[in-house]
């Protein structure tokens, strides 16, 4: 565990606490009076975040000279015996997911999904034999998209965003 990130996260917790305390003061008064009120819990929680964050930073700072950059991990670890990539891959995949969600209402499920699946498979270095002469990196995303669309839109009746394909669907369904 990189102690610099650990300290940065503790500082984020402190900042979050300050943010909550500041914004809690703008919360309106409740029509039902009670000793805690709508501001009470947020203010208390904000204060706890500030104190907790400071305590975590202080703990690292006190030991700073005696510890190396990488300290004993406190969180979940990678699977043993298997090489682990850097956090960059995980964060890039997260970014792909965020872009996918943003694109979904714009370009629709049928276009955004295969792009997302193909991009993340690529990031994970997915390599397989072609499927029906279609390269695996394209075949699996298309197959997944078609099957999932059929299940959700047809069987479960979920209205998935169709984006620019709306006119095509209107023509096909006559509605």
């Amino acid at each position, binding site marked *: 565990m990189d102690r610099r990130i650990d300290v940065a996260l503790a500082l984020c917790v402190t900042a979050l606490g300050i943010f909550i305390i500041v914004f809690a003061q703008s919360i309106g008064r409740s029509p039902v009076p009670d000793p805690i009120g709508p501001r009470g819990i947020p203010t208390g*929680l904000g204060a706890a975040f500030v104190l907790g964050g400071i305590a975590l930073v202080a703990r690292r700072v006190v030991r700073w000279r005696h510890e190396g950059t990488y300290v004993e*991990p*406190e969180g979940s670890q990678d*699977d043993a015996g298997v090489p682990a990539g850097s956090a960059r891959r995980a*964060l890039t995949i*997260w970014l792909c997911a965020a872009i996918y969600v943003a694109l979904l209402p714009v370009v629709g499920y049928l276009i955004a999904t295969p792009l997302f699946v193909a991009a993340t498979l690529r990031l994970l270095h*997915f390599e397989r034999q072609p499927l029906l002469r279609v390269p695996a990196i394209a075949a699996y995303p298309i197959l997944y998209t078609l099957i999932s669309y059929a299940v959700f839109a047809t069987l479960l009746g*979920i209205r998935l965003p169709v984006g620019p394909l709306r006119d095509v669907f209107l023509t096909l369904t006559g509605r």
Partner: protein
Amino acid sequence: MGDLIGPLIGGVGLFLVPSVVIALVFGMLWGSFAGAMPGFNQTLAVGIVLPFTFALGPVEAIAFLVAISVGVSFGNSIPAILVGIPGTASAVLTAIDGHTLHKQGKSGLALGVAYFAAIVGQFVSTIFFVFMVVPLSQLAYLFLAPELFALTFVGMTAIISLTGKNVIKGLIAAGIGVALTMVGPDPIGTVQRFSFGIPELRSGLQIVPLTLGLVAFSEILRASRQAHDWQGLVDGFNAKFPRWSELRQTVPSVLGGTVIGTFIGAIPGMGGTPAAAVSYQQAKMFSKHPEQFGKGSIEGVAANEAAQNAAQAGEMVPTFGLGLPTTDSMVLLLAAMTIHGLVPGPLLIQETPEMLHAAVAGLLGGTLLILLIGWRISSLLLKVVTIDRRLVLVFAMALMVIGVYALRQSVFDLYVLVGTGFLGYFMSRYGYSTAAAAIAVVLGAYSEAYLRQGLNLMRNDWGLFLSRPITAGILVVAFVILAYGIYTNVREGRSAKQMVSEIAKPNAP
């Protein structure tokens, strides 16, 4: 006695409902499939399919999710024995002894013992579950808002104190969960908080995307750091089911593991992995052949498998009896209930006894299905190990997105899912328990409401609020647990420091 037998009969009665049977079959098969896949834990197995349960009735949904848990506990032993790779952490000790037996050419014996222990563990613990949860739920009417607040408080502190390496981080994680529930109307006067004029925030954040993001989406991100699969490790097997004379030797270990698994599973933050470890140690202590443990002991396999299977039912005792989820997969179970408009809490079973019947049907039905087809599908489950893990991770992520979208057709919920996934990734990597945060998400909103309603009920007098005997008793327990957590943290910190200084000594000039 009728109160105790009733839920068992009610659960068995659901086997006559075709939709429940279909849910059980799919749940058990999906659970076994997911359990057999290394690195694919129960939280992910439940998390991926959770949003789909909106299409089911509440009884079918609960039976389905519980059957998944049963399937995961069974399925994880197969790669553990035949490949030496535990499907989940709770099967680690099975991998040690079971895989050694496999290498000695005793695959059938190892698999047969695991199969026998899983069935006995699940079946007996289901009866324990009913006998523990029914009396617990009958206390529900003693609980007013102050007691309910105390319960939610103990639920959050227990998991922080018993699981994390750092209590401060655990408390902050729970605080983050509570903070997420503060967005939207406050629970008493419906005054808007932290909605910043954004229309989607005015009704608050939804529990399902929040909990899924924190515990499941973040786990996929963590798993994606390792792009690998286990193809080539797996060879076929042709195992013969062991004779009763061989299985009979494991009966004490199986029964011991079942009792230990049920009770340890019921402790917040514990679950199958510590239950299996304690059961294994206990079996070794009482064994006539302790020297075989770790070198291919069938008693070791039996104790571990019985305990991790029995822990499923144990985890459900506080979840159903008091509305307190003890593990992240139980948080998801409660989140599934909220999809159907059910309110998790001590009144759950009293007001909707069919939920208890559904849980019993899930446990018993899943076990019955393992008994009927578990042995036959073992070789099929072994093939699951060869499925490319990268495909599974990507499809799991995409399925979670479409599943959450299907709930309310809200793109905003997807931003919540992805956002909390990002938050959960850093939290889990740096020791801020995502399970504690997810539990706080489920309990947090109720906790504030109970606290403020309780104070109103006690004429705004803190003294009256805190001096109610049950409230005071539960709060004392919560603080004792918290103090214990801090004490163990400090003790571990000191011993680590001592170890470091001892290592450094010889190098000192």
